[in-house]
């Protein structure tokens, strides 16, 4: 296992997590586990219609129900709660007003229309059934191809059409590349809509203390600091009197990288009613009204020469926004656009990205956010090219990789890949799976009538978000490191982990840096009252950006401590070693001073050198100069049952390069989870709306989150190409698995069926769909 170079004790070690004892004993506190005295309970009534005028809302019967405190509608709060925010800035972007509760018109199934507050959640639920709403149905827009036609019904009349924005790119000489290419391969690829399904649904608890004039909001969020700012704007409450706490958060995958209507309404109600108000999302609401992911249709062409060199790429990308924007909705497909050449040198690229409004829930960041789509596009196209050329999919990849000495490597979309050695990683994966023999085994098994496929995905991604110019709302991160009087170390970080384990990995980094026991370090996060500034956890940024902010803050404190120690020991600060809770002059461990003694001295402040202030605390804001670019190679072997279309994944090898590894246990956990989600997209998951905008997969009975029996065991390995983007050389690992696995699995299944002439199958590859493709192929039905 790779580790940071140098004498370190904990970085690189598979330390078990410090957050686990509370979690495995049921002692942690998610929002719904927090109980405040006199809490009122909120429930939302949501639209059953995808597009309709609200003709009348009658809340009288609900208000009369014993235990109901209030019922509010969009009309009641239209002047009091402002538009649900979107932070995206794109030239020409049409931004609709997004009321927290619908006013006049509903535009997707699940849009909140009214809110009930009652003394008990059971009563709040009962009251919903007593609200009568009259709707007048309007034509529904669900299909992106139709939505951009001039005769389509329009969702926002003020816009004139359903096109949210268009974004062109023309790099190199694409027309020439296509004119001169030996082959042009065209394909329509669909990246279906997914539903994130964090196991903990969303939840909000808000408390307004009239005397103190403070508003405290506990929310299951990835971005407590952003939420604080936006809440102040949403409910017109001074930001410096708001405290947002993300307590234990039960997974998010991007779905809680947002500011939601319910957060605003609950905060508003708590202020109005003067009592704590709690709302806990039901799973059904989570399906309709928490953001969805993916949902792109891509018309792609690549130009390729006989030797496998890809010379050009042309694509029209249709990205489904949904009816309104959430925080980053329009930005997500921009990442697809930026990352479209994947791990390959493609000099000529022409793109048109079109954001499309439809009567569906908003899409937004779902694990990978725009990048699995890009990987899917390029990895499918590369395989189609190999198929067309009769080339081994391995060879076409090597043919088009940049060479290791070409890094930093700029791709035509303007992204500069930080570091890489794609050949090494791919070779390692090929070696583990024994690729050379594999193709022979495949032919032998094919002769026995088996449909065996080998799927490859070699990806490069954009991670470690990121330079502020590339991240709406800022891409920096902030951390404060404080050494308490007793020598205990408090790390405050602006990232907001919700399963990733930074209470452990950050403590590893800091323990090595300060030479103290890991148990003497507490990593505190998710509370704007404790950590004054921060951005949050998303985009595989916590370690490369947040970890770096912490490391630098820690070094600043350490420098100060060294100065003080040097003063106490009458030594040169540069000669000091921090180790095992002691500080000593290099080579003289016997004359060590206790770390805690120096900490006390800093706080007692009676013997400080003249240029040193009391206390030991430093805050650092780290602004990354560039993104990081993890990469890797995933290879899967599948067998397809031709009679039923069932898919058996027989091996799955993942070799990832995420730069230096802080904690291999946690890293592998991230890769496993990512692969399960990417594989979920490939095989099982898909949000289905009917032509009337009704969500047909509105529960776990119909939307398949992979179960233990439905995912394979993964063989993991790594290569280490340090990132130059940060001092630790880390790249980030949160999304690699998701980015790689979808294309890997689909490539494998298509490869398995290639003897039948199959070139593509639309995801998810359900047994029914695979069987149908086989049947059609057997009958010679062309695509």
């Amino acid at each position, binding site marked *: 296992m790779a580790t940071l170079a140098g004498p370190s004790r904990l970085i690189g070690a598979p330390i078990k997590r410090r957050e686990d004892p509370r979690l495995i004993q049921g002692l942690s506190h998610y929002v719904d586990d927090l109980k405040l005295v006199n809490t009122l309970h909120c429930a939302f009534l949501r639209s*059953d*219609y995808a597009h309709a005028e609200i003709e009348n809302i009658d809340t009288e019967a609900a208000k009369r129900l014993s235990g109901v405190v209030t019922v509010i509608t969009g009309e009641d709060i239209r002047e009091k709660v402002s538009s649900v925010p979107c932070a995206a800035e794109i030239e020409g972007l049409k931004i609709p007003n997004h009321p927290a509760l619908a006013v006049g018109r509903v535009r997707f*199934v699940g849009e909140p229309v009214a809110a009930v507050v009652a003394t008990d959640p059971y009563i709040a639920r009962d009251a919903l*059934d007593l609200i009568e709403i009259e709707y007048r149905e309007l034509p529904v827009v669900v299909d992106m191809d139709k939505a951009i036609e001039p005769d389509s019904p329009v969702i926002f009349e003020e816009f004139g059409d359903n096109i949210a924005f268009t974004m062109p790119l023309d790099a190199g000489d694409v027309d020439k590349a296509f004119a001169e290419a030996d082959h042009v391969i065209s394909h329509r690829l669909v990246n279906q809509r997914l539903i994130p399904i964090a196991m903990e649904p969303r939840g909000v608890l808000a408390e307004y203390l009239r005397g103190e004039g403070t508003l405290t909001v506990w929310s299951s969020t990835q971005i407590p600091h952003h939420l604080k700012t936006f809440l102040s704007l949403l409910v017109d409450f001074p930001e410096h009197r708001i405290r947002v706490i993300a307590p234990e958060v039960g997974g998010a995958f991007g779905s809680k990288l947002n500011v939601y209507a319910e957060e605003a309404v609950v905060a508003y109600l708590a202020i109005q009613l003067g009592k704590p108000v709690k709302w806990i999302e039901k799973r*059904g609401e989570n*399906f*309709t009204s928490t953001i969805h992911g993916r949902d792109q249709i891509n018309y792609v062409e690549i130009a390729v020469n006989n030797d496998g060199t890809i010379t050009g790429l042309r694509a029209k990308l249709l990205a489904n926004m949904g009816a309104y924007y959430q925080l980053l909705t329009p930005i997500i497909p921009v990442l697809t656009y930026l990352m479209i050449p994947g791990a390959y040198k493609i000099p000529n690229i022409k793109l048109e990205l079109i954001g499309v409004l439809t009567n569906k829930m908003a899409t937004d960041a779902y694990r990978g956010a725009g990048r699995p789509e890009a990987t899917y596009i390029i990895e499918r196209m590369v395989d189609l090219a190999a198929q067309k050329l009769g080339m081994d999919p391995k060879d076409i990849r090597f043919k088009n990789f940049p060479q290791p000495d070409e890094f930093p490597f700029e791709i035509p979309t303007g992204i500069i890949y930080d570091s890489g050695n794609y050949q090494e990683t791919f070779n390692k994966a090929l070696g583990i799976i024994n690729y050379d023999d594999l193709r022979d085994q495949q032919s032998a098994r094919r002769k026995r009538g088996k449909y065996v496929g080998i799927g490859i995905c070699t990806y490069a991604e954009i991670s470690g978000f990121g330079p502020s110019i590339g991240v709406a709302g800022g891409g920096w991160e902030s951390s404060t490191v404080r050494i308490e009087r007793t020598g205990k170390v408090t790390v405050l970080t602006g990232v907001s982990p919700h399963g990733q384990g930074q209470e452990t990995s950050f403590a590893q980094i800091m323990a090595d840096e300060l030479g103290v026991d890991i148990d003497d370090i507490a990593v505190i996060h998710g509370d704007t009252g404790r950590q004054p500034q921060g951005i949050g956890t998303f985009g595989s940024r916590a370690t490369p950006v947040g970890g770096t902010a912490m490391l630098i803050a820690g070094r600043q404190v350490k420098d100060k401590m060294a100065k003080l120690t040097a003063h106490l020991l009458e030594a040169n600060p540069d000669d000091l070693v921090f180790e095992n809770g002691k500080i000593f002059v290099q080579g003289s461990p016997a004359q060590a001073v206790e770390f805690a003694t120096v900490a006390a001295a800093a706080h007692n402040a009676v013997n400080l050198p003249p240029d040193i202030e009391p206390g030991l605390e430093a805050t650092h804001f780290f602004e990354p100069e560039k993104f990081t670019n993890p990469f890797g190679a995933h290879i899967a072997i599948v067998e397809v049952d031709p009679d039923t279309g069932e898919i058996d994944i027989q091996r799955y090898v993942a070799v990832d390069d995420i730069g230096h590894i802080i904690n291999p246990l946690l890293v592998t956990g991230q890769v496993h989870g990512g692969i399960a989600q990417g594989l979920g997209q490939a095989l099982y998951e898909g949000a289905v709306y*009917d032509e*009337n905008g*009704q*969500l*047909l*997969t*509105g*529960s776990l*009975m*119909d939307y398949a989150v992979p179960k233990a029996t439905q995912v394979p065991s993964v063989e993991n390995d790594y290569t280490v190409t340090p990132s130059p983007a940060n001092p630790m050389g880390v790249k980030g690992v949160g999304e690699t698995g998701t980015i790689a696995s979808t294309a890997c699995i689909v490539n494998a299944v298509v490869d398995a069926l290639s003897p039948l002439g199959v070139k593509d199958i639309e995801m998810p590859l359900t047994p029914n769909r695979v069987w149908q493709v086989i049947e059609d192929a057997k009958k010679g039905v062309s695509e």
Partner: protein
Amino acid sequence: MKIKGEYTVSAAPARVWEYLTHPEYLQQCIPGCEGLKSIGDDAYEAVLNVGVAGIKGVYTGIVKMENKQPLLAYRLVVEGASKIGFINGFCDFTLKENEQNQTGVKLDGKLNVGGKLARVGQRIITGAAKMTIGKFFKGVEKLAKSGAIPLESI
């Protein structure tokens, strides 16, 4: 959801036409129909109490008949809403005399289901729709077997 089907009724088209279009007969045949009140030309306010698997809903809505071509074809349009969701759609009925005193009725239509029912009832909806139509034609056949005569001629 598409609705397609073919049913045979043991009566001549003239009678079957009556069974399929006369509100009193319709009320007898539509499963769970608790009332059909005329609100204009071939339009009725309906109360339907239908459900399967304990998932019952009382739907109030409108039933209309359009494009009537007596003894040959018409379109039945329904819309209804209940606490658990709403339905709307249409079905074109085409009648054809198969043999003496036997009429084939062809169905071709579309049913939209919305609300909670659509979101969580996917496993049930299609089957339930088929079952409801099946019950409807069982009712029609029962009328035919009982020899119920066109009400106009009473």
